[in-house]
């Protein structure tokens, strides 16, 4: 199919020498032919350094290794310099430094083969989903940018199918980038099931998958750092989520990993200010989906004020209002998620209530989530890691300490969006327990009211 045997492996990537995993002779041969080009690992400017993989510029992200040592380092290039500068920000993926350059493929580019019948999926889309799907097909055809602003539980994954179908038929390379590894683990099997003939690579830290010219790459945003000019269609899931905002380097990585002509699709339930502005100013075409796929309104968060809530949490006691809420769930045989602001409070509550808890550093995080999904656990205490992307069919949700800083408007909206996701059980209870009513709590509730109102209008139009 391809004349160059290395092309599928390296096309569109930006890798370190040891990641290329080539023998020295082959490596030198490819360099000589100009199929591989060397890119300096760190761009040294007058006022700052920039890592050419993760694009960080913060001075604290760079380290120095002295070269004048007891034991001389056997490397001819080093003789002249006093020290090597390296990037500490992305060192988990291997060291990039002034003497460890990156390599990019410059040979014949390879494309995944065109697929005649990529999908076996026979589901139906609601009129609203269909509208978004068509807009996405349009964006892929025109290679333009699109923002899909859909509430939690609108069925975002299904909306993508029509667009993906077109992309695979044209032999486009598609990437779905998401900020969380949990989402990759949930999404990739689903896509493999619905697109059985398509080559899917699921990339996250610690994955076994490799991407050899796959049609579809489902990756965490950090994995994008290994790509350059690779994708025809880029779908960025949950654009607003953490590592994106406040961190300029990841948008840069997204911009680098796409081909010069590309379609860019943003998916989110809670766009941040910059996207909202761009969409209002008509710089980005926007599709808004205020209704869930089952057509029922979003559950409206109940607000419940508890005095001295944080003192209670510190002491490890629980106020009556919260125990009452939990008992109600237990009596009704409802499964529930409890969101808490910090790992310490998760730990304390878990001891008190005898409910397992997960946080970002739990070693058995996947297992716990899996058990909760399989209904092995009746309840789970979690920090914000489960706030988005994960779907549990029929649960209730409470946020204990919703006035804490970690729960901003977007986080609360996302958390509320965990409830009532299945068509059989479209109403879930969402309660925010707080001591001081914050702007985020009020805004999150207003958002839900607004979206439900919009949804009602749409429903009238279609009926």
């Amino acid at each position, binding site marked *: 199919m391809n004349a160059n045997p290395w092309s599928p492996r390296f096309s569109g990537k930006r890798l370190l020498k040891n990641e290329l995993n080539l023998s020295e002779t082959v490596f030198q041969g490819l360099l000589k032919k100009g199929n591989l080009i060397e890119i300096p690992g760190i761009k040294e400017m007058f006022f700052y350094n920039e890592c050419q993989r993760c694009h960080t510029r913060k001075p*604290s*992200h760079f*380290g*120095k*290794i*002295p070269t004048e*040592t*007891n*034991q001389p*380092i*056997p*490397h001819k290039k080093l003789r002249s310099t006093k020290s*090597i500068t*390296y990037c*500490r*920000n992305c*060192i*988990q993926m*291997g*060291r990039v*430094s002034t*003497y460890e350059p990156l390599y990019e493929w410059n040979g014949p580019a390879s494309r995944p083969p065109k697929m005649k019948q990529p999908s076996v999926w026979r589901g139906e889309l609601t009129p609203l989903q269909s509208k978004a799907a068509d807009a996405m097909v349009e964006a892929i055809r025109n290679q333009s940018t699109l923002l899909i602003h859909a509430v939690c539980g609108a069925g975002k994954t299904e909306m993508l199918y029509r667009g993906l179908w077109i992309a695979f038929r044209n032999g486009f390379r598609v990437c779905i980038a998401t900020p969380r590894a949990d989402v990759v683990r949930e999404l990739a099997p689903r896509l493999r099931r619905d697109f059985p003939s398509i080559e899917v690579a699921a990339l996250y830290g610690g994955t076994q998958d490799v991407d050899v010219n796959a049609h579809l790459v489902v990756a965490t945003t950090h994995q994008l750092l290994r790509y350059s000019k690779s994708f025809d269609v880029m779908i960025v899931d949950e654009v607003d989520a953490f590592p994106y905002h406040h961190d300029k380097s990841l948008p840069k990585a997204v911009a680098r990993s796409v081909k010069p002509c590309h379609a860019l699709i943003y998916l989110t339930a809670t766009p941040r200010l910059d996207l909202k502005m761009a969409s209002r100013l008509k710089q980005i075409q926007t599709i808004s989906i205020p209704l869930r796929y089952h057509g029922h309104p979003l559950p409206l968060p109940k607000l419940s004020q508890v005095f001295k809530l944080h003192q209670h949490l510190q002491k490890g006691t629980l106020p009556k209002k919260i125990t009452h809420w939990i008992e109600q769930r237990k009596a009704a045989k409802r499964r529930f998620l409890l969101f808490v602001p910090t790992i310490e409070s998760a730990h304390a509550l878990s001891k008190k209530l005898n409910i397992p808890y997960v946080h970002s550093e739990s070693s058995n995080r996947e297992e716990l989530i899996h058990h909760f999904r399989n209904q092995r656990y009746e309840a789970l205490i979690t920090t914000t890691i489960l706030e988005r992307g994960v779907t549990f069919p029929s649960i209730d949700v409470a946020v204990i300490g919703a006035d804490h800083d970690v729960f901003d408007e977007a986080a609360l909206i996302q958390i509320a969006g965990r409830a009532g996701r299945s068509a059989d059980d479209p109403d879930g209870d969402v309660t925010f327990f707080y001591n001081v009513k914050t702007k985020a709590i009020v805004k999150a509730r207003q958002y839900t009211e607004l979206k439900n109102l919009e949804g009602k209008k749409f429903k009238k139009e279609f009926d």
Partner: protein
Amino acid sequence: MHCKICLQSIEKDTTWSTLFDFRERTLCLSCDEQLEKIREPTCKKCMKRTEEKLCSDCMFWEQHLGEDPLDRNISIYTYNEYMKEMMSRFKYRGDYEIVYAWKDSFQQAFHAHFSKGIHLLPIPLAESRIFDRGFNQAEALARLLDQPLFAGMIRTGQEKQSKRTKWERLSAKNPFELIETPPENVIIIDDLFTTGSTVRFAAQLLKKAGAKCVSSLTLVRS
């Protein structure tokens, strides 16, 4: 100031006691908490955690070599999960700057147990490893102390200690060679002290060549 491990900025409340404190902090509180210092009771000689005065390892060495060439080992941290992760980032990923996170405690341990002016001998590294890594981790540690270094030892044998069992380590040939006469007092610097075979191989050579007192200062005792 930024923490050398988590790269977050270190915040410090301004009080009268900290206002004129210009020492550079290299570790934030939450990272510092996860590093676990060795606590008593330990073996007098090698700081292995044990109830006995002399641990079974040290007893064994005395029998095995006739006389133990190593006079004393000082270690600072235990080899807990967090430390394992830090070590792999330091050595296998090649994150040199992490060494500054241990600067304070390493210097303190040195001043508490040794006097100034003694020569330090960082355990030499095989050429192929130093080529991959770009630095010698033992030397990086030794440079924290600002003492004269002794560079008269080279490594001839190939190694990868961490992949070997205890018995394989014991029966291996001495991987070092001396090319200069050592000073009278030497402190061997290394990152890890597991069975102590590496340090003792080096100590054996030094003693044979006329060194009187050979101790070791290692960051981690596992």
